[in-house]
């Protein structure tokens, strides 16, 4: 299997990472070499094998939904690249 430039562009769109054509070519080459290495898995017959999603195969424990942290709104907002009063600011979405 080979990953062509169009596919690389498509994956970059899905990943929300913009890349120019030069980078896309280089990346395509890397991805092809990684995927040809991954293809090795096809040697194995796994028809009757159950997938292993997590090593901790227990039901996840639930805890009470309690507020544990004090009011840290200010501290959280400090990390924001753009804010206005108590809001995070993003480019205009609705025209």
């Amino acid at each position: 299997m080979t990953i062509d430039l169009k596919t690389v562009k498509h994956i970059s769109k899905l990943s929300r990472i913009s890349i120019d054509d030069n980078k896309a070519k280089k990346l395509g080459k890397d991805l092809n070499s990684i995927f040809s290495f991954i293809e090795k898995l096809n040697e194995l017959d796994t028809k009757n094998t159950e997938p292993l999603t997590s090593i901790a195969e227990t039901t996840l424990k639930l805890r009470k939904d309690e507020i544990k942290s004090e009011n840290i709104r200010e501290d959280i907002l400090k990390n924001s690249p753009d804010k206005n009063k108590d809001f995070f600011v993003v480019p205009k979405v609705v025209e």
Partner: protein
Amino acid sequence: MMSNITDLKLVELVDKIKKKELSSTEVTIAFIERSKKSKKLNAYISENYENAIKKAKIFDQKPDFKKKLPGIPIAVKDLFCTKNIRTTAGSKILENFVPTYESTVTQNILDEGGIVIGKLNCDEFAMGSSNETSYFGNVQNPVSENLVPGGSSGGSSSALAAKLTPATIGTDTGGSIRQPASFTGTVGLKPTYGSCSRYGIVAFASSLDQAGPMTHDVKDCSLMFEIMSTYDTKDSTSVDFKRENYLTNLNENIKGKKIGIPKEYRVDGMPKEIDELWEKGIKIIKENGGQIIEISLPNTNYALPTYYIVAPAEASSNLARYDGVKYGFRSKGENLIDMYEKTRSEGFGDEVKRRIMIGTYVLSSGYYDAYYLKAQKVRRLIKNDFDEAYKKVDAILTPSTPSSAFKIGEKLNDPVSMYLNDIFTVPINLAGLPAISIPAGHDKKGYPLGLQVIGKAFDEQSILNIAFALEKNISFKNNITDWWIK
């Protein structure tokens, strides 16, 4: 006398502080002074020196000697969120991120009297085996100039081996504690999945990530592990098992222990020295009354391809949160989507982008079954291999890495060759098992090599004991000169 303090191991320092032979302030200043002289290693991303000295002075005013780390300075990998101390994960996208909360593992260290002196360099989002993917630059291995310290916990292994911190902590998703430990002649433990809380650790691949200690010897490692490992309701995969007093119980008696030697780990092209080292380990175990049993882990060769589907898939999902909105770097865009795409394009480095894209691809419509589901099935086979083996043995002995440390830049342009570094460590993460790497010798270039002891789930005590016995008989000496200090 400063240099003498930094030559002491963690347990020795704790002892001397408890006996009032040293104060926390003296010890903290000694490690900070040495760190200041060692900028050339580039082991630190952020320094917390002034604050740390303040804390040491406060400790000395009212010392609590019941603590397990009484006023001990410790630098930690910059993947652990530390409240009010910048946490970058080695990435531009988190360059200015200051957490509002403390990770459970670092909180455990603070609760036992530890003092954080700084945050250590690492591969970006822990994705790398040489620390070369860090936005904050390469890290030097104190063993020799222009040698990689391993990765992703490369700042941790470098700072520890150079004695800038008496012990440290790292994270291990596919070998990120054990490989750098092996490359720097230090001890590194990857605990059982569920042993140390993942709360507050910048997530890479959530079903594989584990925090663990990196230390000068097995005793120090046992102490650190004892402190780090707690049951935590803030991590839904934290396991409530009976934790031991690992240091008190540490015991070199391995009489009757059955140790497996997996034949699949004898890979082609492995340097002769590594094979000899392995033989040396086998001999020591036999001489100490242990029993050597040949075992087979038939699916070993499939571990790396499985890992390079599972880890990027989880990473692509975990890293979706970096959108430039609530925290982190943001780039200007014409509209919201454009802002996302430019932020992530400029904020992430090449390796991280590569893995996000691999992950996105294997999870995308039409490829999910062929790749992701297939990898999860093979992961089951790999775990079954270990389950079968543990019917016959108590632990498994292998080399830690297929080679010693390599030069900076040597493998940067060949991702697959870089990935092959983790061939002996990755299967253990896939199976969720504990494993420790201890320094066991040098290759002909004089670079350290490690042996790995793999245990049954939650049986860290056994592998610590086996490592302790090996360590006593190997008496490894790290021949590090202070070449980076003028």
